[in-house]
């Protein structure tokens, strides 16, 4: 999922999710970047409304153990 998190991070920074920005973030996290995966990610997200895609994702129900916290 790290490539997706990187894309979400770039997106939430208000930047365009392109190869350069994704690579920068992944590198900063200490991840050895796979160029072809970055390319594939950017291509897959091309034309995708990221806001809309993530807007439906609610958090999962809290487990009872956590609920007491």
């Amino acid at each position, binding site marked *: 999922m790290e490539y997706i998190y990187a894309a979400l991070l770039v997106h939430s920074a208000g930047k365009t999710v392109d190869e350069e920005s994704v690579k920068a973030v992944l590198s900063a996290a200490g991840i050895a970047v796979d160029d072809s995966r970055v390319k594939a990610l950017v291509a897959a997200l091309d034309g995708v409304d990221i806001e809309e895609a993530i807007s439906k*994702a609610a958090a999962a129900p809290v487990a009872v153990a956590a609920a007491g916290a």
Partner: protein
Amino acid sequence: MAIYTHHLPAWKREEVESIVENAGKHELIGLVDVYGIPARQFQQIRRNLHGSAVVKVARNTLVEHAFNELGGHFIDLNGHVSEHSALIFADGNPFKLFKSLEQTKTKRSAKAGEITPEDIVVPAGPTSFKPGPIVGELQQAGIPAAIDGGKVKIKETKTVVKAGQAINKKQADVLAKLDIKPMPVGLSLLAVVYEGEIYLPDVLGIDEEAYKAKITLAAQQVFNLAVNAAVPTSCPFVTEAQIAKAVREARNLGVEAPIYEKGVIEMIISKAYRQANALKA
């Protein structure tokens, strides 16, 4: 008073006076429909009502005389007098009288031409009939039947006559053979005068289910109001719901903002993961 009765023969006058006298002794005076009640059953119903209501059969002309003499809303009762009506005298709540009469009703077979008050449904399954012309009779009445294992079997559950529709002769015959009794038998209240008001069946027939639903709704409204307005109550269930609501609001705010605090961090992780998943897909 005597203007209506002075020309009547003595026994008729006595009959009218007896009705008027009974009317004076009871809070409720009304008319019931006794159509189709066999004599023995009629006696049984009268016995069942003993103590709570008196049913009196009288000539309609004399009933009308009596109602005219009583005046007021009793004159309106005249419009409900029919060849199958009888007088009923009782006390108390007219809605309760209506309900108790409904509860004493039983069922009988339908006659051709009668209107069924309810859907007549014939269930699928085996019958006790041996193969014979009955199969054709069933089919002509709209009931799909076949022979199965030496017995007549109804192939599928069928609504033969819908509520409010007339039952034709073929249907009536077959339903009687199937021992299906769609027609209610008993006293039907046609109209009643109580405390100067006339009450008709459309008003007297109470839908208990509707009342139950309203009670449930009222209880729900009270619960909603108590929780939403955080009204303090002595009901622990409500207090718990109020706490739960406040906690949920805090969690919602924590996740939405997001506020990185222990109580909500797992939910925030969960949301981030789900967002990533949604994007991946």
